């Protein structure tokens, strides 16, 4: 079929492809972020090279950190990083979502607005201030009123034994407070964005406020809340100074959640200025690489989870 001249002309004007110059521009902009990440990884690899060649993959699994004998392994740091972040999520998620649900309700806009702003302001506090507060207030308080009673009572349970004022648990608690604003603010906005019709339909079918929230609103907001969680996890994994001040800085796999531990970011922050020689700084840089690996893995796992969840529900 021969196209008529007008049809050809029309097709030329409404070509589905954007003009070439525009596509080039978009392409350049779009590759900036991955390129930057790649560049960072390459530079880190360069810096870490002595350690990478010396320890090989065993670096990730090694559990000693001894600058004197030059024995370095990342495993306790990886463990501490992942454990504190996950525990922080477990603590902050229920609180954050509950507060978000309440804030997303209608009515009493004044009070809800004030609480909302207060929570968002929590995000503006510098992390070193959180660290000081945790060191002098939160840590001693939880040690006295939470960790000690619990570990006395459950002394036979290994992972709840031997309380100490600076511990994995204290660090997780500070992290939980620190990620709460992100979690709450984003979840609140996501819950607010759930179409009003869904709520009204559920109410009209006789469900109570609880049933509506639990069965209709939260499932509708699930994807967004998941996004908020990933954002919060990212912050928790990379948080350095506040954790360093309360985790106890003990490079070991802790026997209990109340024992001192260490995170990747804390080791780097504490030791980088004193690291001398060749292998020692290289090993610290390699810890940075391990940290990138952990955050990337967390994001990839999250992506896979989101994909499979949306494939199942396809909202």
């Amino acid at each position, binding site marked *: 079929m021969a196209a008529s001249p007008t049809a050809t002309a029309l097709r030329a004007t409404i070509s589905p492809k954007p003009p070439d110059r525009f596509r080039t521009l978009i392409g350049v902009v779009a590759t900036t972020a991955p390129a930057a990440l790649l560049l960072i990884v390459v530079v880190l690899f360069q810096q870490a090279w002595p350690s990478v060649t010396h320890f090989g993959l065993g670096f990730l699994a090694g559990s000693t950190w001894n600058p004197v004998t030059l024995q370095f392994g990342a495993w306790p740091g990886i463990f501490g990083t992942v454990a504190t972040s996950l525990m922080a999520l477990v603590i902050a998620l229920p609180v954050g979502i509950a507060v978000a649900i309440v804030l997303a309700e209608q009515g009493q806009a004044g009070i809800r607005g004030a609480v909302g702003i207060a929570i968002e302001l929590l995000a503006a506090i510098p992390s070193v201030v959180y660290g000081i507060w945790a060191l002098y207030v939160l840590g001693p308080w939880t040690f006295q009123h939470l960790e000690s009673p619990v570990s006395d009572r459950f002394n036979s349970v290994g992972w709840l034994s031997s309380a100490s004022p600076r511990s994995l648990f204290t660090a997780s608690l500070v992290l939980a407070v620190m990620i709460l604003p992100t979690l709450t603010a984003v979840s609140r906005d996501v819950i607010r964005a759930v179409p009003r*019709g869904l709520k009204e*339909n559920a*109410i*009209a*079918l*006789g*469900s109570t406020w609880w049933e509506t929230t639990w069965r209709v609103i939260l499932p509708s907001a699930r994807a967004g809340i998941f996004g908020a969680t990933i954002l919060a996890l990212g912050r928790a994994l990379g948080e350095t100074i506040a954790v360093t001040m309360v985790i106890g800085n003990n490079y070991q796999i802790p026997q209990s959640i109340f024992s001192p531990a260490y995170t990747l970011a804390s080791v780097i922050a504490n030791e980088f200025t004193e690291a001398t020689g060749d292998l020692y700084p290289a090993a610290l840089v390699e810890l940075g690489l391990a940290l990138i690996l952990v955050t990337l893995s967390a994001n990839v796992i999250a992506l896979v989870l989101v994909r499979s969840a949306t494939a199942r529900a396809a909202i």
Partner: protein
Amino acid sequence: MADRRPIEQTLAQVGRPELLTVPGASPAKINVDSLSFFYGRNQALKDVAFDIPERKITAIIGPSGCGKTTLLRVFNRMYDLVPGAHAEGHVLLDGEDVVSTRNLLELRQKVGMVFQRPSPFPMSIRDNVAFAPRLLGWPSARIKTVVEQSLERAALLEEVKDRLNDPAASLSGGQQQRLAIARCIAVSPQVILMDEPCSALDPVATTKIEDLMSALMREFTIVIVTHNMQQAARVSDFTAFMLMNPEGRFGELIEFASTADLFNRPQDDRTEAYITGRFG
């Protein structure tokens, strides 16, 4: 367009003497008596009174903002969601007062509602229909039969019977609206309230819903709010015409009569002006 079904009975007493009265009415399902409604300090309805006949389709028409939705939402107490809203007067469902009842679950099981937008819940087609039965704690065997029955009665089963576990959002707009109807009738309500159920649908889907309403009328008392006067004339047995009072800024019931009478022999000049399109 003429009515599809002849109107065999009309309403005798409609609560207000100045409104049309005809002998031989069907029994009233809902009695509305001196009903006033307030959003905070703003009055939205004043002294509405009429009887909604059982197993008939009653249409509520009137210009935008005259309080049709407000009136409809009194019948199942949806206004409870609006802070500061309250009703005065009486709405009796089978003699029991709706305005003062405390058992909202029971009320909303008896009085279902279909909205303008279907709003499928983020779950499968089956779970959408099973939603209200599950709230009532019915055994799963009963829920299973009820899901199929409701989809069948909502004229949707044929189209979805092979994909009951698919997400409800995968249905077309018209199918979603029939799903909303199935979801609503799953717990066998006695009254179905519909607020402009076809205004988001194309003509074919609208026809399907209208046919469905005619079929459902045998079992349910239906109250429909519509902007579309042809639709009111096509599907309803009775029609209530409402108008915003120009001074008080509240909605009033101007005339309530059998649909044939209201459209052919309106008693009030304002009704006539509205149905002949000479209004506002």
